[in-house]
């Protein structure tokens, strides 16, 4: 190993560090350490002059290692790595000691804080000696994309990619495209026809030569990694088709809540209690009738069936409130003499145009009854002398009274829930699900369509209940992310990943099961495991587990961590007594 020439840079961070830590004392002590050529302090190390100081020292003093004692590496590690790169040395020859978040900001005692800062920095010096130059590596990006699910999300993503001239395989389980939107008549709040909206999408998808539509087909296996997936799809004939794709968009949607789980609503027992989707079916056929074939006089809509309930799903299904208002309109226009009651908990009208739609609905002679979360409505059959088929008991919140309202037809606004196959799909494409079963995004706010598996994206209601505009936006966002990757033509894998030394690997396979990204692959012929670095995210689970010590975590090697342990535990002879 070349002789280590280390520069140590201790930041005052204005007074953030310097007011508690005696920075000069740290500098002086570190300057005496073996291998340290220069130790300096500066007001703001991350500022341009601060970085320039490091760059100049690297050039003038021939430094080959740099330790910066400053803030959290989560903050400025990229900044200082860049400085090293600018000075012409490998960026991974940097180590940071966190003496702000872990020292000056959390301790008051100047003597102890200074000693701790000194120890943390000296541990960084010991560690950096074992740092190795690391290079990022690239792999080619296959421009084709697999889109799972032919609902509105899958169609939007496929069209965005296909229109950009990229190959898309659109795989749909059912025998038609359109998904749940295909079961809907009009859409809230503008009362546009869902059919018109879908027909346009479906026609374009079918006509686009870049989009291969595969109905009655399903993904059975996905291997490989970002840029280089191999998908096996079973088509309608039961044949397995092998596809090479660089990205996957999961748009598998949702299913509706099974209303028969709530006994007090009598769904499946009283024939005129129906779900929102069953009402959509009637509307599409053009006739709203009771099971007996009569025109209902009293129609009731019950909100939050399965949603916003501790017993079933605690979340809001987001689309049902506006859909219920839409039904009120549709029922009123189909049966002008009917009485429509709308039984709700809160009216969620958050989307564009929705509040306005709500206001118009309140003017349309719908009776709104507010019930409390803990006291859901109950439905009972009416007697032979009553002029209605059923009664709904409601503990009305605004009046504070318990009342019974008449109904001939009750529509249950069933919420959304993950599909039964969501676990299997998650397993197939290697993504995670939350406690409800929805797919988890890489970051809920900043990275909502990516997942923890590179190259696998999620869009639409498979990650949480969503309306059509949000679904389409997500689908197009996922497509945009993929087009950006395709434009680059290659995937850069981070330089920090695990690596198997095949001369030490005995093929025991303890590591294989541990990798959450299936990046550790067993070669049956060689009888050795190896890491596909483009898939590795550097967690190090396999490294710690490898009983042979054959796997190395680049930038988090055993040697580096041992040096750091020794560094944070300086030995004092007065410990023996």
């Amino acid at each position, binding site marked *: 190993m070349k002789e280590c020439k280390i520069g140590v840079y201790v930041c005052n961070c204005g007074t953030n560090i310097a007011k508690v830590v005696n920075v000069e004392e740290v500098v002086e002590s570190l300057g005496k350490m073996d291998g340290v050529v220069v130790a300096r302090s500066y007001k703001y190390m991350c500022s341009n002059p601060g970085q320039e100081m490091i760059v100049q020292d690297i050039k003038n003093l021939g430094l080959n290692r740099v330790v910066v004692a400053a803030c959290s590496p989560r903050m400025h590690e990229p900044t200082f790595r860049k400085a090293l790169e600018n000075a012409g040395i490998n960026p991974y020859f940097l180590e940071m000691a966190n003496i702000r978040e872990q020292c000056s900001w959390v301790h008051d005692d100047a003597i102890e804080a200074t000693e701790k800062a000194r120890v943390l920095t000296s541990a960084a010096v010991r560690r950096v000696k074992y740092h190795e130059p690391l290079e990022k590596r690239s792999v080619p990006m296959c421009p084709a994309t697999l889109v799972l699910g032919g609902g509105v999300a899958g169609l939007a993503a496929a069209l965005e990619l296909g229109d950009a001239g990229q190959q898309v395989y659109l795989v749909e389980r059912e025998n038609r495209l359109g998904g749940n939107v295909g079961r809907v008549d009009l859409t809230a709040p503008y009362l546009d026809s869902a059919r018109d909206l879908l027909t346009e999408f479906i026609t374009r998808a079918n006509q686009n030569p870049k989009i291969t539509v595969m109905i009655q087909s399903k993904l059975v296996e996905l291997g490989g990694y970002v840029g280089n997936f191999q998908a096996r799809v079973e088509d309608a004939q039961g044949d397995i088709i092998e596809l090479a794709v660089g990205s996957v968009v999961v748009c598998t949607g949702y299913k509706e809540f099974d209303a028969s789980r709530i006994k007090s609503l009598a769904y499946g027992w009283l024939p005129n209690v129906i779900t929102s989707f069953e009402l959509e079916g009637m509307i599409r056929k053009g006739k709203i009738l009771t099971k007996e074939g009569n025109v209902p006089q009293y129609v009731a809509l019950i909100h939050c069936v399965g949603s916003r309930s501790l017993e079933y799903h605690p979340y809001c299904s987001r689309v049902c409130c506006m859909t219920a208002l839409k039904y009120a309109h549709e029922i009123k226009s189909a049966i002008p003499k009917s009485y429509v009651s709308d039984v709700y908990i809160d009216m969620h009208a958050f989307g564009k145009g929705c509040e306005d739609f709500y206001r118009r609905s309140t003017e349309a002679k719908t009776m709104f009854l507010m019930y409390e979360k803990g006291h859901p409505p109950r439905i009972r059959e009416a007697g032979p002398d009553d002029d209605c088929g059923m009664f709904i008991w409601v503990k009305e919140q605004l009046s504070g009274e318990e009342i019974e309202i008449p109904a001939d037809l009750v529509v249950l606004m069933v919420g959304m829930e993950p599909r039964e196959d969501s676990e299997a799909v998650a397993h197939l494409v290697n993504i995670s699900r939350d406690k409800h079963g929805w797919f988890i995004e890489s970051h809920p706010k900043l990275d909502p369509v990516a997942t923890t598996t590179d190259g696998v994206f999620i869009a639409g209601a498979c990650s949480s209940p969503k309306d059509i505009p949000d679904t389409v936006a997500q689908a197009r966002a996922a497509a945009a992310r993929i087009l950006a990757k395709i434009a680059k033509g290659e995937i850069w894998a981070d330089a920090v990943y695990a690596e198997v030394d095949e001369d030490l690997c005995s093929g025991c396979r*303890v590591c294989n099961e541990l990798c959450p990204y299936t990046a550790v692959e067993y070669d049956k012929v060689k009888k050795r495991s190896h890491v596909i670095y483009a898939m590795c995210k550097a967690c190090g689970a396999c490294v710690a587990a490898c*009983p*042979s010590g*054959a796997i190395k975590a680049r930038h988090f090697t*055993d040697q580096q961590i041992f040096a750091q342990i020794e560094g944070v535990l300086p030995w004092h002879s007065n410990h023996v007594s």
Partner: protein
Amino acid sequence: MADKKLQIALYWGAGCGGCDVAVLDTNEFILDVAALADIRLWPIAVDGKYKDVEHMQDGELDLTLYNGAVRNSENEEIAKLLRQKSKIMVAFGSCAHMGGIPGLANLCKKEEIFKTAYLDNPSIESRNQVVPYPQTKVEVGELEIPTFYKRVYKLDAIVPVDYYVPGCPPAPHQIKTVLLAVVGGKLPPRGSVVGASDRAVCDECQRKKNEKKVSKFYRPWQIIQDFDTCLMEQGILCAGSATRGGCGVRCPNTGQGCRGCYGPMPNVKDQGAKLLSAVSSVIDSKDPKEIERILAGIPDFVSMAYRFGLPASMLQRSFQQ
């Protein structure tokens, strides 16, 4: 060296003597040894006194094969003496290499060991109250026996060691390898482990390996095992994945889990910790209670993890008060 016979010594420290027997297990090769070498000290087989060794020049011996750990002052004294007189010091067998089975005594205190061996032992006369003391006064003067240390050491904790020949005991072919290497002057870099593989036992093990998920651990006699499948996958503890190969898969081939006698892999600092990692990695549960239940199937993991290497491990011994 062709005209001069190799000068060698074999010593038996704190061990069972199996390593000495292993030398004899080289069968007719032992005759070649006699032709190639003068055996200057081999307490089990050849007449020779410590005094003779003391009278040798420094470096007069070409090679010492030291088997056994260092448990008492005699072991230490002879280790130091032989080191001084030998060009090459070989830690021969698991005990010299890592402390071996005697090293498990580091889980107990010296007093406990004496109590078990001399006071509470049912085969000892019930009123016996005598435990060994280094000095005993008798009529004719004072008798001295070696001091029993409070713990066991591996050989290189006492003297510098040039080569390590692992195994409990080392396989006969390793013994040949070492002797022929010395004779031929073809020695690997000092500090090397000789006669073992750089890959773990699994490399040579013919059992089929799959991904591993274990929800119950068994002792080998508790289940009918499949001889074609990895023992660990069947819930039978096997140290093979954490142990250097080269032994010929002696234990797993007979249906027992590897016991780890060849020691840790080249990059590994603590064999037991690595076995711990491997074993805990295959447990198929995410529930703390269930994990505890599964682990309860391993009654004495520390003795499994450090069966041959406690004195060579990070902590070296127990610190029970």
